[in-house]
């Protein structure tokens, strides 16, 4: 049966009609399929939730217990009723992130959620899942977004640290995913010093470690003397960068790890001195490469700069449409 007959895109989420379930709904629903733990995809208040075990742990940390959790290890199939079989596959976005494959009446539909194609030391890599309809994100869906090599960006960070022994390097990174990724990338680059954290990052880092991601020596900024932080790397949520909180740091060099840093004026808006283009989303080349790799019959674009990606598809005679989704704020990269 063609996907449009059993999958309905709504501004508040994707409704899978035969099994009466919603994918990443932005309002509380009795049955929710959740791709990953970011707040714009995983909300509290649902009745039952199907997600990877890691995503369920992350939701538990954020929203407490409440929803009935159905753990979906990667690759396992579950019958959701109404003839819909669902399985979860790595999306490479953050720990626990998944693409959801739905099979119904001979039709295969993949919802990517957020994803990236390049390596990430904190989560398993994206898997190409063949399907008829690909429902893809498009956060960085413009050809200006080409994320440089992550190692080069990490090298910039380490150079800035070496060049400023009397200052600290304050890196803005989102609490779930980006912070742990930056730590992991630093470790891979051979940096084994203690990395200092804003209090808001502590719990999630600890959860990552419990889930088997080794982050090396970490400590809280709150426990340190200002002078002892000279020459150190400090991580904080982006909101704290220009906040009073940062006054406790020794003359910080303000850095920000985000795909948006590719555009100069976006970096300037954030008062960033050291922009680091480290993204957990697919860039333009990854988005288009993925469409070619998956080679679906149809492409639906959920959120981001969907117009450009739809145009790219139509230039290649691929059937594509933009879905109007709300509440997906893509600033969390």
């Amino acid at each position, binding site marked *: 049966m063609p996907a449009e007959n059993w999958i309905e895109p709504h501004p508040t989420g994707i409704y899978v009609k035969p099994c009466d379930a919603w994918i990443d709904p932005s309002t509380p629903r009795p049955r929710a399929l959740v791709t990953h733990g970011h707040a714009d995809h995983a909300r509290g208040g649902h009745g039952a939730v199907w997600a990877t075990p890691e995503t369920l742990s992350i939701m538990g940390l954020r929203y407490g217990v409440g929803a009935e959790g159905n753990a979906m290890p990667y690759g396992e199939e579950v019958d959701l009723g109404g003839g819909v079989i669902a399985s979860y596959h790595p999306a490479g976005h953050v720990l626990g992130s998944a693409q959801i494959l739905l099979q119904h009446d001979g039709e295969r539909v993949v919802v990517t959620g957020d994803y990236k194609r390049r390596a990430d030391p904190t989560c398993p890599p994206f898997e190409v899942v063949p399907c008829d309809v690909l429902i893809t994100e498009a956060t960085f869906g*413009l050809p*200006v977004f080409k994320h440089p090599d992550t190692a080069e960006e990490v090298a910039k960070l380490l150079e800035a640290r070496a060049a400023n022994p009397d200052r600290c390097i304050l890196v803005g990174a989102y609490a779930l995913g980006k912070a742990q990724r930056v730590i992991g990338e630093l470790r891979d680059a051979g940096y084994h010093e203690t990395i200092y954290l804003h209090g808001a990052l502590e719990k999630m880092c600890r959860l990552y470690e419990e889930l088997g991601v080794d982050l090396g020596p970490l400590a809280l900024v709150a426990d340190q003397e200002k002078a002892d932080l000279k020459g150190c790397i400090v991580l904080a949520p982006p909101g704290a960068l220009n906040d009073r909180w940062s006054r406790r740091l020794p003359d910080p060099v303000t850095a920000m790890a985000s795909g948006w840093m590719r555009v100069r*004026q976006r970096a300037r*808006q954030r008062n960033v001195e*050291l922009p680091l283009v480290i993204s957990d989303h697919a860039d333009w080349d990854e988005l288009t490469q993925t469409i070619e790799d998956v080679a679906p019959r149809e492409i639906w674009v959920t959120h981001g700069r969907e117009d450009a990606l739809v145009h790219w598809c139509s230039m290649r005679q691929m059937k594509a449409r933009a879905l109007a989704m709300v509440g997906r704020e893509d600033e969390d990269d």
Partner: protein
Amino acid sequence: MRAFAELIDRLIYTRSRNSKLALIADYLRQTPDPDRGWALAALTGELDLKTVKSSQIKAMADERFDPLLFRMSRDYVGDTAETVALMWQEPVGGVPAEDDLSVSTVIDLLADTSRAKAPQLLAGLMDRLDANGRYALLKLASGGMRVGVSARLAKTAVAQAFELNVDDVEEVWHALSPPYAELFAWGEGKTARPDPEGTPYFRPFMLAHPLEETRVDLADYAAEWKWDGIRVQIVGTHGSVRLYSRGGDDITASFPDIAEAFAADGVVDGELLVRGDVQGGEAASFNALQQRLGRKTVTAKMRKDFPAFVRLYDILIEGDQDVRALPWTERRARLEAFVPALDQGRFDISQLIPAESYDQLATIREGARDAAIEGVMLKRKDSPYIAGRKTGLWYKWKRDPLNADCVMMYAQRGSGKRSSVYSDYTFGCWTEDDELLPVGKAYSGFTDEELKMLDRFVRQNTVNRFGPVREVEKTMVLEVAFDSIHDSKRHKSGLAMRFPRISRIRTDKPADEADRIATLKRMVT
């Protein structure tokens, strides 16, 4: 290009003036000639490659990119050069790491090409650079670096790099040309200071402090009108004449009518204005002058429709005698003797205001609504002409701004660092038929917090979209301050504001209580 691209990038992300100065000074010390000279010319806006204009960059983009993808990207990024640099498809195998182009190689190649061949040459250079290098190349080639560095700041960095006095640098500046080999030779102590004598070089302006709380005694100060044009310095030496703006930029090419008419040896300071027909040959409002600003060439029609003249304030050099050290009264007397010999159609003298007392002056200032008057200047009668702003010598006392409560009608995203924020607002007032008509547009005056709030308002109250413009629900009242308001045929409301800015956000005021067009008409000068 690598060092230059890095300099440009770091300047963009550096906010503090001192850090910018240090970055430029380091670059100038460490980079060999002639690269550093070309870089300095780019920063001071004196690099003008005739072969590359934005149309050549656009042509190169059209060749390489899908037009719709390019347009969407350009809309998002807010800057053509950056969009092209980011979208550029690097050659297979990447950019050769060892192959660093020098700035001077790039300049030589671009200077030697033609407009027709420029896009192809540029594309070849783009293939040899990484994203930052491509951005720097396009900015260098098209002029206008937009890295938050004024010509003055760059000259200050030169002074800092080589421990020179910035006014000395400023004085020799216009006697030199890119890539400024003599300047660096002097800076490094290899040669004496280049001698600007015999060339029409720029002398730094004397500037005024705002009066604010100070009250001055008119026994010690002379009062004159502050005209609403642009400050200029006219330098005439041995038959060659130059016009300089306040920042030391050479603007002679924009005002050939003035330069041709100045048949004297000397240096004078005055206000450049445009004559308005309506006021019987008096100075027109700044709106009229704007027609003449920023043009590299001027048509005969422009010269005829907007004839420029200079209202003189002061004299710095008379013949070959430097009179800057003399007291103001003495210079004024010399100026009064100097002006009658000039072309009366192009030069006159700024009249003093005959006020007996400070209070009387305040009354005269209050009553002044001439379109070309910006306020009053107070000059200490014994003040020498000194570069810069020295406390207690000169004061400017601007006219109080006018105010109106207007309703936000449309919003547009800003450019540059505001490219993702709705920061440009068109606002209107009510007609007799309770219709809103636009009366102006403002993009300043608010704090960062207020901007966030206004941006959110626009996004949440959009009723219509016209390309990049959003029409909003007519509920937000903005108190707008402006220096003056004029009749205008260009606008449906028949009004045009001079320097409007948002002074307050009146969330407390219902939109139907905003001002009426008729009220604004009564403020017209």
